[in-house]
């Protein structure tokens, strides 16, 4: 496998009893790429993502993330990735700096390195004054920007973002995406799910899951051409309407 490929799956499948949540998915993600992983609620995105993060064992098929086998080396994978989701990312009853310290410690960063990087981060986010604020009292948009920064604090090869901007207003979403662009520019691979179709346009390539399968995968430009659509929203609706299974 080439150095450039950071995620690779072959016939990756997950069944729960008789229910096939993820059905033979095949794809590759390249280094520094922003890869959009789209699908309706219940299409299988979270299950697939959990396998890629080493949290759930596939029923069949293969997958490699950051060069490690998702079946045999899940712990190695966890050390090489970052993760954030809309639902849970930071500890609400810890202060801003305590959250940074906690995550950096978990990923094994050295104390002096943490201290130095914390200052840089707080400054970059204009959070210097909020250092001692409890995360619970931050507005959602700020929380999400902090959560993203924390998820890439240890400079992982890949970061998995599960609906990172859910409920965030348009202005803050854009600031968030500028942070994503910047991380990708530094070579961090971004694997992101979203329900905002304008955000799908910001991705280099996009896959769309329907009923556990990947039904489409290409650049936003090519997908629009392929489906004769003028927006990603139209592409998504055309595909998702085929879905047979309900959530």
């Amino acid at each position, binding site marked *: 496998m080439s150095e450039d490929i950071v995620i690779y799956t072959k016939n990756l499948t997950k069944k729960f009893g008789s229910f096939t949540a993820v059905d033979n998915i095949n794809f590759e993600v390249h280094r520094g790429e922003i890869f959009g992983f789209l699908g*309706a609620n219940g299409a299988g995105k979270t299950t697939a993502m959990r396998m890629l993060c080493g949290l759930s064992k596939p029923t069949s098929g293969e997958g490699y993330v950051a060069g490690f086998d998702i079946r045999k080396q899940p712990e190695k994978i966890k050390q090489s990735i970052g993760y954030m989701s809309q639902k849970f990312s930071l500890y609400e009853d810890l202060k801003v700096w305590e959250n940074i310290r906690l995550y950096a410690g978990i990923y094994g960063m050295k104390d002096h390195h943490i201290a130095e990087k914390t200052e840089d981060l707080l400054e970059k986010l204009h959070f210097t004054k909020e250092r001692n604020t409890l995360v619970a009292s931050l*507005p959602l948009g700020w929380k999400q920007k902090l959560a993203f920064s924390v998820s890439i604090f240890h400079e992982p090869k890949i970061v998995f973002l599960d609906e990172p901007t859910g*409920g*965030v*207003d*348009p202005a803050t*979403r854009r600031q968030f995406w*500028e942070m994503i662009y910047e991380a990708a520019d530094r070579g961090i691979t971004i694997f992101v799910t979203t*329900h*905002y179709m304008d955000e799908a346009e910001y991705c280099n390539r996009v896959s769309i899951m329907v009923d556990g399968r990947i039904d489409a995968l290409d650049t936003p430009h090519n997908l629009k051409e392929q489906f004769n659509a003028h927006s990603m929203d139209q592409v998504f609706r055309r595909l998702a309407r085929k879905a047979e299974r309900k959530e």
Partner: protein
Amino acid sequence: MDRNNNYQSPTVDYRLPAVVVENVHKSYGSVQALRGVSFEVERGEIFGIIGPDGAGKTSLFRIMATLILAQEGICTVDEFDVVKDYKQVRKRIGYMPGRFSLYQDMSVEENLTFFSAVFGTTIRENYHLIGDIYRQLEPFKNRRAGNLSGGMKQKLALCCALIHKPSVLFLDEPTTGVDPVSRKEFWEMLKRLQKQDITVIVSTPYMDEANLCDRIALIKSGRFMTIDTPYNIINSFDTPLWSAKSDRMFRLLGDLRQYTAVDNCYVSSEFHHFTVRENDFDPKTLAVQLMEKGHENIRIEQIEPTIEDCYMHLAKN
């Protein structure tokens, strides 16, 4: 209370506004959440409240739903004061809070039966209002609400908010985290409720949904910046808007912002949008500069604003 025979939907005067809010102020300690908000919502209107987190949207919903008190100002629903006549108001409204707030350890059907009973009605009596949504939930009616997926929880919450045929429905970010297809279905249903004269006040972070409202209010830091139809808000965008694209979009953003004539610049789907400081802005000069900085396949065009551009414009000023 006689649950089956005694229930009547509240009668309303169709000529009067459904909701009136006048100069409402709300503070939490030193934090001012609402700083004098006023508006009226017509009967049968879908009224959208659009704004960033922390702008005061949820406080406003809670005041209208009689759950918290404003320090100053008046708010009425169907002519009833939310403070003095709170019991009347509660009978007339349906409220779907942003955070899932049904009973997680009761089943789908138990939740719905419970909410009908509280309002002295039955599922059967108002089934016509919720049928479209509830049919999708029926296969799971014995499942505990806590075990439903996000989209299903939203549908159940809406059913519970509707089961007593409210005259005004308050929806605090009902579609956050819901996929585009389900969101579309949700809005189609709001349009059907509107035909039955139910007034809807809804907040959303999705600008395509803002477009579907009859009127919207843009709120920022506890104040309404503007209240109008989406059409009028778009028409009042008073400065030329441009879009730009090249093969290196992230670098383009930084390069555009460094260009002196460029004012507010932000990403927007496959383009970057920007306003300009000078009336005689020349896109050709900009294109040449961008080419010198290594951009290829440059496209710069003047475009019509969308509601999202209006939001970005107002949010900045």
